[in-house]
């Protein structure tokens, strides 16, 4: 389904998420697993940090020459008998894909997981044209039958537990015996496999994303663990690859620099089970494979990002590590972010794609702890980019008035040191009166949004400046300020 934008209601979404015991249990269960698996995989690869630098440099080089690599990629796909379609925006990408399906009289389209397909909302569009989209990644299949959207870019059903999946399968798979045993997760997997096997064989068109596009050979590289992208692209009459323009790398070797950090960052695997280089339609002597091969190259605002501060975001390889390590994501889950891309990467991308007017709340969904930047395999300075949006938001006067006045007051005081010190000291006294006994506040005037789900630490002593002066006088500062 296409995702309705609820990003402007982030606060409301987050409050509801925090109060949802089922979601909280699912997040608590999944989060630590991702962190541990990534850590273990990286511990076994001493070259991991060098690979990160390498991939960052490859991506920077490719982006700086993106026009030329796009041309080369297009030429190579054509030589192999495929077609390349450029789409300026989501609407055009939807038209192109639906047009190919209609020309082939397609009734069903199998899909492997693709966040870009969520970004353009292709499923609703296909359905409106009388074409049935069938999600085949297990997690995507589960959320499709629930009428939901993914809550994580690599683990779309991370917000659900096994019992919910069992209930959905019983509700939807009505052709199976009602008294069947679905207690074991393997039984659920086997049931989904059986249901989808027929869909794979019957599909007219297969739609996949691409993790990487290789300019040198015109290959679309698609990575899965389930094998669903391979059945999706091998069996139907046509394979459509939907990929955004920043997925390009120059060469096959470059693709492997990226793949070496991708699986480790995402799932802690050395290599995903299936890494497929799709290089065009079925050849003359091939007994299988799609008769047509199409690549839809989506821009949707990305080319404009190339020229500004957000350029670095275009290195993102969609590994999900930033959300797996984000305290905000781990507390509220992906749906609270209110559009397709959640977590730190989503908070940077969403305002660029749906507009700062709708996405203004997301850059504030950060504690600026910096863990996202620490783990990002392509070294995207996510906190810096979030600050960029906060700045924009402030300048565009979209910040709620109390915050704006508060910041202006602070700026005025900070510029006028003689006022700043007494004013902060006064505020400090007032705060410590509130939180005197416990060292934290369970509630605080004007900050109910903060204290409803966590305590606000109470200042225990004087202001930083006052402490600094006192310690300096006593000779206990470990470093002296620059003269």
């Amino acid at each position, binding site marked *: 389904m296409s995702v309705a934008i609820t990003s402007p209601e982030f606060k409301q979404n987050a409050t509801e998420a925090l109060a949802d015991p089922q979601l909280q249990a699912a997040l608590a269960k999944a989060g630590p697993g991702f962190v541990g698996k990534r850590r273990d995989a990286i511990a076994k690869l001493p070259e991991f940090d060098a690979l990160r630098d390498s991939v960052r440099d490859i991506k920077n080089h490719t982006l700086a020459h993106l026009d030329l690599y796009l041309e080369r990629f297009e030429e190579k796909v054509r030589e192999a008998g495929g*077609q390349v379609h450029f789409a300026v925006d989501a609407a055009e990408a939807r038209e192109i894909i639906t047009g190919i399906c209609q020309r082939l009289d397609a009734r069903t389209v199998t899909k492997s997981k693709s966040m870009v397909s969520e970004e353009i909302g292709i499923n609703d569009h296909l359905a409106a044209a009388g074409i049935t989209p069938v999600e085949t990644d297990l997690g995507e299949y589960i959320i499709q039958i629930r009428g939901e959207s993914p809550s994580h870019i690599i683990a779309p059903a991370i917000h659900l537990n096994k019992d919910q999946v069992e209930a959905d399968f019983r509700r939807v798979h009505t052709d199976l015996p009602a008294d069947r045993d679905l207690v074991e997760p393997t039984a659920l*997997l086997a049931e989904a496999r059986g249901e989808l096997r027929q869909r794979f064989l019957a599909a007219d068109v297969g739609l996949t994303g691409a993790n990487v596009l290789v300019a040198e050979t015109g290959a679309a590289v698609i990575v899965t663990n389930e094998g669903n992208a391979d059945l999706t692209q091998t069996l139907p009459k046509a394979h459509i690859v939907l990929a955004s323009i920043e997925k390009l790398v120059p060469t096959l070797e470059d693709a492997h620099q990226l793949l070496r950090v991708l699986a480790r960052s995402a799932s802690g695997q050395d290599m995903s089970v299936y890494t497929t280089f799709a290089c065009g339609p079925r050849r003359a002597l*091939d007994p299988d494979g799609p008769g047509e091969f199409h690549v839809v190259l989506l821009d949707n605002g990305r080319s404009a990002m190339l020229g500004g501060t957000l350029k670095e975001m275009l290195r993102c390889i969609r590994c999900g590590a930033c959300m797996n390590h984000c305290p905000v994501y781990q507390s509220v889950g992906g749906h609270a972010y209110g559009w397709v891309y959640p977590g730190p990467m989503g908070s940077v991308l969403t305002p660029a794609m749906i507009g700062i007017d709708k996405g203004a709340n997301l850059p504030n969904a950060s504690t600026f702890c910096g863990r996202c930047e620490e783990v990002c395999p392509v070294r995207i300075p996510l906190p810096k980019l979030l600050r960029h949006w906060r700045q924009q938001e402030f300048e565009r006067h979209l910040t709620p008035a109390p915050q704006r006045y508060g910041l202006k007051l602070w700026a005025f005081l900070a510029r006028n040191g003689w006022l700043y010190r007494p004013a902060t000291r006064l505020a400090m006294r007032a705060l410590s009166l509130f939180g005197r006994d416990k060292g934290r506040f369970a509630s605080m005037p004007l900050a109910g949004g903060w204290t409803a789900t966590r305590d606000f630490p109470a200042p225990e002593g004087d202001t930083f400046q006052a402490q600094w002066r006192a310690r300096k006088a006593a000779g206990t500062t470990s470093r002296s300020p620059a003269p």
Partner: protein
Amino acid sequence: MTSTPSSRDTVLASVRRALGVTSREAPRRQEVEARLASHPAGVIPARAQLPPAERLELFKAMALGAASSLDHLASAAEVPGAIAAYLSTRDLPLKLLRGADPRLAALPWSSAPQIDVWIGPSDGRQPVGLSHAFAGIAESGTLVLFSGADNPTTLNFLPDHHLVVLEAKDVVADYETAWARVRAQFPDGQLPRAINMITGPSRSADIEQTLLLGAHGPRSLHVLLVGAPS
């Protein structure tokens, strides 16, 4: 339907505007051509940079670690017998589907006459598929397979059991070495329709992030490793 020329031009013009370039700067073109021609390897982990025998042991360990199973056979003559043993210990029908690969055709099938061998792509009804790998990659225990009549791609994904013959001499250290061999095999740059890198049997962790084997692809991946490293 193809995109209107204007969409292509619009996207490329927008990229160039953002980068502050035209399409005509010679140094940019030269840099791109040089990179494509030299395809530098980048950072290659030391893990698999080993003498042949140890490299082969690493391949075996990594393949088993990815939940593949493996028989190491002294020669290709032993393959039919090993397949017969695999099928019977798992109570599978003594039947398999393979492609036209001459290396598979040349196996002494008469040594295991009980196996019924069919040739062609899969339509999903055959429980066992047999392929011949182009290469194995020691770094991650990965198999490299080409599409085509010799080894139809459907055999990699539709059967429950995928059996793959891999010659020990084709086990290389890393992906980069495998691509060098691919380039040598296809000097005109026209690659097979699909190149599949496969690292273990199919799996999913989408239900409560618990890893389960046997998602949409094969439930078992069995490597028939043949011979000694060259």
